[in-house]
């Protein structure tokens, strides 16, 4: 499955995994955001993991798109996690004054998928 030509989106159980592997230009970032929301609605995905391991630079525009995508997914009822932020990206965003509020983060795809399934399970009262 692919939400947007250049950003592969996999479905793993009821979770979508979007891997951003190339530098995002603004228009593609916007298209990605909208496509992902549509895919969530279409597939009924209860989890969304956005992997940005491949990004060596995230400026305030892309950071805002990512954060907002997470918030939008949350509004729709999907658990969203941004994973794999590089040290230089985290340092640059914080130094700029950016706060990625309202979105969960995890170290890598595995940790992100685990977090999402845990959140889904907890919601559905699994294990109780």
């Amino acid at each position: 499955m692919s939400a947007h030509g250049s950003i592969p989106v996999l479905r793993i159980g009821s979770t979508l995994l979007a891997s951003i592997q190339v530098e995002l230009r603004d228009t593609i970032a916007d298209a990605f955001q909208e496509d992902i929301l549509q895919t969530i609605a279409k597939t009924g995905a209860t989890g969304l993991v956005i992997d940005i391991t491949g990004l060596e630079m995230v400026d305030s525009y892309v950071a805002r798109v990512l954060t907002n995508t997470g918030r939008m997914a949350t509004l729709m009822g999907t658990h969203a996690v941004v994973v794999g932020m590089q040290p230089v990206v985290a340092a640059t965003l914080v130094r700029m004054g950016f706060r990625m509020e309202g979105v969960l983060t995890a170290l890598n795809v595995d940790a992100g998928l685990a977090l999402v399934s845990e959140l889904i399970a907890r919601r559905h009262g699994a294990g109780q």
Partner: protein
Amino acid sequence: MTILSSENLILASEDDVMLARRKVRLLAETLGFDPFTVAAITTATSELCRNVCVHAVKGTARLEQIGSGGRTGIRLEVRDEGPGIADIDRVLSAGQRSVGSLGLGLSGSRRLADEFRIETIVGRGTVVTVVKWKRPA
């Protein structure tokens, strides 16, 4: 201060912005900047060049390798003849008070740069200059 190399860039499209930040990254890496400093100057470049395309439609950038007292640095001057910025003080203080505020392009670039200068005249245009020095090893 000595200018060791200089290149002029056109800023009129998203592609130009992408090219500008790639050129800046390449120069910074070639000069042996550490990864955090590379990210800082590349990100500031992205912010300033995008602003030109979004707010002034088009403009130019001059990318220079500079030297001063044994230090090596990169200077980027981004220039447009767009609308200028009326409330520059407010724009530059963004992200100080507010949590999750919008519009961190200019204020964030200032925080990322070692030196930052902005000249803007409403109705005439804007020139922003940032300098980033290579850190001593």
